[in-house]
């Protein structure tokens, strides 16, 4: 019996002992299983974030500055891209058509010179500043720059909020 134990303790004599094999294979097995399980979970979570979106692109070219009248709120991009282009005497800016109360789409009422949200009655001035209803803050502005070909480029992926002082950022308005 003693000779057997000695033989088991010297693996180079007759290959690997059963005890040595189990001592090695169990941790390796568990590590492999955990790695497989963890990577499956990560892959499942990742699969929930789609790579392809069937949505209008975040940034788009809005035509040439000359196509917009001074002092007007232009609604031509509102349905397709959710943006109003406003041309004031000094500058252009692009307001994002999402009410800051709960996310409905406000409407521009030219007769009353204000944006009015149909859901709960939030009202915004032409500048986007909230003045009536439950909206807690002004409408957000999208980044607006001049593209290489001279067209206005509106980029909704970058937003500017007045209450954070971000309307000072030169990309939140376009001087032409």
């Amino acid at each position, binding site marked *: 019996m003693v000779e057997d134990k000695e033989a088991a303790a010297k693996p180079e004599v007759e290959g690997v002992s059963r005890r040595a094999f189990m001592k090695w294979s169990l941790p390796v097995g568990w590590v492999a299983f955990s790695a497989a399980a963890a990577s499956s979970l990560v892959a499942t979570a990742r699969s*929930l*974030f*789609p790579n392809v*979106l*069937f*949505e209008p692109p*975040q940034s788009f070219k809005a035509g040439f500055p000359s196509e917009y009248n001074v002092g007007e709120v232009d609604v031509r991009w509102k349905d397709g891209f959710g943006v109003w282009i406003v041309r004031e005497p000094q500058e252009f800016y692009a307001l994002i058509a999402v009410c800051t109360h*709960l*996310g*409905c789409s406000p409407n521009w009422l030219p007769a009353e010179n204000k944006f009015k949200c149909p*859901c709960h009655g939030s009202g915004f001035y032409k500048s986007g500043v909230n003045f009536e209803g439950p909206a807690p803050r002004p409408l957000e502005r999208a980044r607006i720059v001049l593209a290489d070909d001279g067209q206005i480029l509106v980029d909704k*992926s970058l937003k500017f909020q007045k209450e954070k002082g971000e309307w000072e950022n030169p990309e939140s308005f376009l001087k032409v």
Partner: protein
Amino acid sequence: MATKPPEPFLTRTWDYITDTQIWKSIFRHGMPSTSRNRALAVMTNVFLHLHPVKIRKSGVRLKFTWCMGGLTFFLFLVETFTGLLLMFYYRPTVAFAYMDIVDLAEQVPLGIMRELHRWGGHAMVISVWLHMFRVFMTGSYKPPREFNWNVGVILLVLTLLLSFTGYLLPWDQLAVWAITVGSNMARATPLLGHEGPGSQLLALGDVKMVHAGSDARFALLGGRFVGEGALLRFYVLHCVGIPLVAGILMAVHFWRVRKDGGISGPV
């Protein structure tokens, strides 16, 4: 010696049927006559054993139990069945969703399945709240029953989530804006929402990891706003995901009651 008159036709037919091999393979034993055999007939049947063999008299004290838990489960089964029937005619895409619901009322035979499903959903929410209220009033959440109370709360949340996901499927104005408002909450999630506290912490230098196109709300909606992706995801959650989880938790919930000796038993 007079011969016996032949047995009546029906008796003879019945005896013949119950003597066939097919019958004996389905119904291995005859009608049980002893108490023990009657109990065994329920206990060993795959369908019947889901209900206890016997229940205490206290279990049918309606003034005590209100039977709201049972009603909720019954409504869940009604919803499953009516929902299944609706699935034969409803397509969860922006192009078809609204008109399919209209057609279910106007073109499909019977024409009331959508309403039955909707009323059943409302009734289930009401009955689950009444059940919760009853359990509270009768103190049936007290130790050692706290765990089952918590399972019940999760089931309550799942019931409300079923209502929430189902609300989007008709794809009408009510649906789109209600889900827009409801899902906007997700962007304020701490760390995982792009407008929530702590989202800046997960930025790698200048690159924001958690933004409108990669936060929890994005995963929930499958997009930046409620559109094609949201409709399909909510459909899958409503028809498969949440019912599966709810079913498993219901099994736990009912089993806990049985383990404690049946509904409305003493502590």
